[in-house]
């Protein structure tokens, strides 16, 4: 009898333990989203460096404030600092894209401006000229060459940039070529209602993803409402890599071409046809060469949205090999989306396979970064005086919950350093507070949405481009002008 009582007690204790464990784990399905953009903001943005934590021996200072949607930073041979302002933000807000020289203690000096074809997403200075990746939501993506006097010409045009993601990441390679990247039109290969929310589908209803090489489809199709037919209850059926309302068939071939979606490409400084470097990415936003000359990319991964939503896919950092295919739209890293239930949304199906034949098997990523962190522009430390030699410093714009999927807490909104050998990503610059989050969420004067990070030519200081306030309340994006900041991080005692 005593044994039985003890058994009952232990059973109850174990059950309580399990109940506590479950409770402590948090029930994802029952909890609301708590993304970093789900906040309110009143201008002006407060700047307070004490609200930002760094490893011991480092300091941070604002170099420029009041910028509108800044996205990139570069340096000329004299060490002068230049920033680009995007000219476009999610939320369908257009301003003027600008290249600015930053002068400590005075207003930025405009060097060049663009038209209504933002967002300008990246800039690099190389051999006497600036090269800008122009996102091209209205006229298609371009790579621009801008002289120091502001004269602008296009090296590449017509990149498939009218969709969710844009032309990005221009950098100069050690081989003398310019490398750039192109994001996909869609979340996971299928045009649907979510693309109308971005704003582009009504402007360009015939647009869809463009493969770099010929692909063979499984013929999986997806039914959705027709967001173009306003007020109608009409349904449409859409396959992969085709316009909205176009079904596909098993064995159907979609011809490839370059420039294409979800790719890294390169072009000679003199211009000409772009050449494919690698493909099968989703949104390869940031590009950088490591100190030993290997090319790496950050790749924003799938969201829980649209006709083919994908759950729980962390952003990736890749080492880029020439000619390789990296898995979009059927893989996350080396893992197929359609096997098991790992990528199944809580309310939805396991993502169905789109490619009948694979161009290859994707390699393992160099690092897996947090889901929805929007891990973007990055650079490698090259100078032992700064420290962390060979590690990649990655700016994380932060989540766009609930529009891209629910999160239980803000994700990103900081700079991390990644050991590309082990895949370990440690915080480097992060806001103080009880939890992680952007300054507007924490109500402090720290980091908001870091989008790019680049070392100065000497490698002694890391410049962090902070896009500024961008809120998400589930009914569209609310970016705020004049809230962008350029930060500079260096050792406390610079050598």
């Amino acid at each position, binding site marked *: 009898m005593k044994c039985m009582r003890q058994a009952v007690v232990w059973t109850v204790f174990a059950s309580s333990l399990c109940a506590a464990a479950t409770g402590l784990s948090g029930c994802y399905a029952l909890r609301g989203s708590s993304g970093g953009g789900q906040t309110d903001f009143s201008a002006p943005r407060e700047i307070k460096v004490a609200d930002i934590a760094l490893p011991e021996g480092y300091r941070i200072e604002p170099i420029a404030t009041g910028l509108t949607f800044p996205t990139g930073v570069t340096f000329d041979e004299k060490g002068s600092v230049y920033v680009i302002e995007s000219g476009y933000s999610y939320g369908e807000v257009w301003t003027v894209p600008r290249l600015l020289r930053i002068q400590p203690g005075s207003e930025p000096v405009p060097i060049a401006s663009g038209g209504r074809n933002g967002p300008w997403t990246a800039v690099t200075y190389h051999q006497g000229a600036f090269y800008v990746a122009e996102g091209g939501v209205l006229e298609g993506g371009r790579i621009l060459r801008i002289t120091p006097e502001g004269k602008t010409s296009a090296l590449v045009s017509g990149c498939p940039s009218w969709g969710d993601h844009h032309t990005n990441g221009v950098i100069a390679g050690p081989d003398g070529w310019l490398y750039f990247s192109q994001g996909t039109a869609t979340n996971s290969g299928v045009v649907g209602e979510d693309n109308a929310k971005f704003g582009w589908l009504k402007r360009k209803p015939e647009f869809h993803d463009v493969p770099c090489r010929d692909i063979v489809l499984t013929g999986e199709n997806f039914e959705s409402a027709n967001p173009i037919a306003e007020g109608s209850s009409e349904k449409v059926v859409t396959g992969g890599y085709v316009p909205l309302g176009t079904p596909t068939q098993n064995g159907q071939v979609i011809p490839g071409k370059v420039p294409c979606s979800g790719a890294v490409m390169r072009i000679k400084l003199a211009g000409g046809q772009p050449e494919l470097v690698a493909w099968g990415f989703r949104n390869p936003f940031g590009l950088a060469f490591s100190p030993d000359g290997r090319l790496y990319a950050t790749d924003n991964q799938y969201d829980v949205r649209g006709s083919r939503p994908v759950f729980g896919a962390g952003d990736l950092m890749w080492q880029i090999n020439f000619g390789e295919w990296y898995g979009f739209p059927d893989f996350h890293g080396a893992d197929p989306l359609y096997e098991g239930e790992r990528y199944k949304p809580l309310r939805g199906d396991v993502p169905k396979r789109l490619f009948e034949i694979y161009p290859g098997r994707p390699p393992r990523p160099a690092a897996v970064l*947090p889901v929805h962190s929007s891990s973007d522009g990055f650079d490698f430390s090259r100078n032992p005086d700064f420290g962390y030699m060979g590690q990649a410093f990655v700016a994380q714009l932060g989540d766009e919950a609930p529009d891209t999927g629910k999160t239980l807490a803000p994700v990103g909104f900081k700079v991390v350093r990644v050991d590309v050998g082990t895949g370990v990503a440690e915080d*480097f610059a992060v806001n103080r507070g009880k*939890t992680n989050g952007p300054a507007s969420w924490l109500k402090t004067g720290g980091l908001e949405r870091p989008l790019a990070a680049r070392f100065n030519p000497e490698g002694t200081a890391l410049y962090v481009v902070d896009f500024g306030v961008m809120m998400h309340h589930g009914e569209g994006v609310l970016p705020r002008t004049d809230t962008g900041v350029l930060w500079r991080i260096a050792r406390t005692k610079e050598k």
Partner: protein
Amino acid sequence: MKLRSLLLVAGLSICFFLLLACGSARRGEPLTGRSSFSEEAGLGRIAFYAHCDQCHPGGEAGLGPALNNKPLPGFLIKMQIRHGLGAMPSFSNIRVPERDMDNIVNYLKELRR
């Protein structure tokens, strides 16, 4: 043993673990200084970043809940890894081998300190 006593044991157990969970989940070099780990935990750290960090960044909350402030015993962590729970997928022995799982548990225990 009366029902009231059993309920008391259950209630106290839950309260005990909930109270232990009230600490901050925040870690990382900028906030808490550089950490050092045992060899097993160091290997667990690499495995954690390959499999767990994307939903629990640095052991904090993200897509999923925080881990650093949850005093779950090792066997429950392992059970959750193998069988999943709620939105968390299960990880098979092929994906996360037994030794990696042991190392992850060691890493989480050292990270929680």
